[in-house]
């Protein structure tokens, strides 16, 4: 292999810097979470598990983590239940309205979450749903829909319609085709979309912020209010836990369905 030219060498050096830039803040948080000190100082005086013990004992973190996970799973499920039939209908439709409808279903991605949260708060309060898990679920489902619609549209468009026709002439009714052919074939898309929805929901502070109450706070909201008062490594510890949960979700999905099947059919 010939010696790389100067611009190429510079580009390789730049990539190393870029990866450092991306990874450093995340790595630093993981390291800080094992600090034995009450303050964030460098170099760290020693290593300990004390902040992990602290977050387990600090009730608001644990209850809000449970709320967050529950909310993420529930909103992704509800979002999928609503989105999958619509995506199946829109993917093969040639109606004039189909494009417009697809855009409506994708639109919530483009609306700033803080605006949506604010608008929904007053709307839901008028329906006397106000600060409740139901309100959170409604809001996060709106945000989940575009992710599922997008991946299912893409997956289903790649499925040749001959497969469903084959099933039909082999004697399958519409319900049987849906159950035995269509859904199994778009399943990777459904799961990929639902996983995007779960990950964004876990981190969607602007949307959750407005519905906060003692019983319905999500983890990011609790973390933010904690940070306004204290600046200690427990935030690092709970962040690391949240990251591990997200990573575990991804790995689980990989084990069960295979990451490569998420992109290929």
């Amino acid at each position, binding site marked *: 292999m010939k010696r790389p030219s100067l611009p190429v060498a510079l580009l390789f050096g730049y990539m190393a810097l870029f990866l450092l830039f991306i990874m450093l803040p995340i790595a630093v948080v993981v390291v800080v979470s094992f600090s034995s000190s009450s303050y964030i100082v460098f170099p760290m005086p020693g290593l300990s598990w004390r902040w992990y013990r602290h977050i387990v004992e600090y009730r608001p973190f644990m209850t809000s983590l449970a709320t967050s996970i529950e909310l993420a799973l529930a909103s992704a499920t509800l979002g999928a239940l609503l989105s999958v039939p619509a995506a199946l209908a829109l993917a093969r439709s040639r109606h004039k309205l189909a494009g417009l409808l697809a855009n409506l279903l994708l639109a919530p991605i483009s609306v700033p979450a803080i605006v949506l949260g*604010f608008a929904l708060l007053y709307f839901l309060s008028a329906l006397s749903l106000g600060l409740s898990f139901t309100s959170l679920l409604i809001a996060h489902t709106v945000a989940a829909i575009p992710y599922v619609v997008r991946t299912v549209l893409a997956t289903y468009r790649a499925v040749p319609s001959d497969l469903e026709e084959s099933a039909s002439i082999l004697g399958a009714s519409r319900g049987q085709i849906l159950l035995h052919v269509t859904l199994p074939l778009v399943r990777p898309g459904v799961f990929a979309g639902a996983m995007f929805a779960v*990950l964004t929901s876990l981190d969607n502070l602007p949307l959750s912020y407005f519905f906060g109450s003692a019983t319905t706070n999500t983890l990011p909201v609790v973390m933010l209010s904690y940070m306004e008062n204290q600046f200690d490594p427990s935030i690092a510890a709970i962040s690391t836990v949240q990251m591990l949960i997200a990573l575990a979700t991804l790995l689980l999905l990989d084990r069960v369905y295979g990451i490569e099947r998420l992109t290929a059919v």
Partner: protein
Amino acid sequence: MRRVRPYRLARPSWCVPVIAYLLVFFVIPLIANLLRSRPVDAAIGGGPFFYYVKLLTDPYYAGVLLETTKVALITTFVCLLVGYPVAYFMVRFAGRWNALIVFCVVAPLLTSIIMRTFGWRVLLARRGVLNAWLLDWGLITRPFELADQPIAVYIGLVHVLVPFMVLSINAVLQGIDVQLEDSARVLGAGRLRTFWHVTLPLSVDGIATGCILVFVLTNGSFLTMLLLGGGRITTLSLLIYQQFSTTQDVGFAAAMGNVLMLVALLGFLLQFRLLRRRGVKP
């Protein structure tokens, strides 16, 4: 031969539940928000656009609008400068390392924004990692404050948003024929000239998509400003957040939200037109 009419399993009615859901919990609330931005108290005077006039004419709020635009523009530009070479590298040089780089670009999306912002505070603070290293190596004699500065906000924003720029540009670069570059180089153009005259113009679509995305996302961010800005940078989103948590001036917050919406809507339309030009279905 490709048949024009594919088999249709799903009936159009299958769209009804999700459309009803979004009409009730997405479209109507946003329309209600439009109405909410009118002053309730007729005594204030100034007509239905009172808050919008205030936003544009009051020096403080006009300043916030200006600052919002400035932050979004600078962030977008820096993300483009930082992200383009990465996307280019991934397509042309990464080879078997591509998977690793994709992972590194996507991995931050698995972590919360609070975590990443917190990480930057730890790095940039007076007693933080960066100062500790610089002191160790004798490059500085006194630690200095980097957090709670505008620069910290920009670093944080770029860190959070650059993956979107990289992925947008990368998607378009993947579609550009390497042979075009090669033939330009065979014709005697140097690598840099080839890049400038062939690759860059062809990747304009990806650049536009990435820029619109980052611009709109920056406008919607407030956590980074809140946690890294130390009150030095106030943007519209941050103001909505503060209005809500402190003064509770609902009508005004709604008006500011609608201005943000307008920007997002414009971005969305622009992006839609770009995709249409490329012949991509949504």
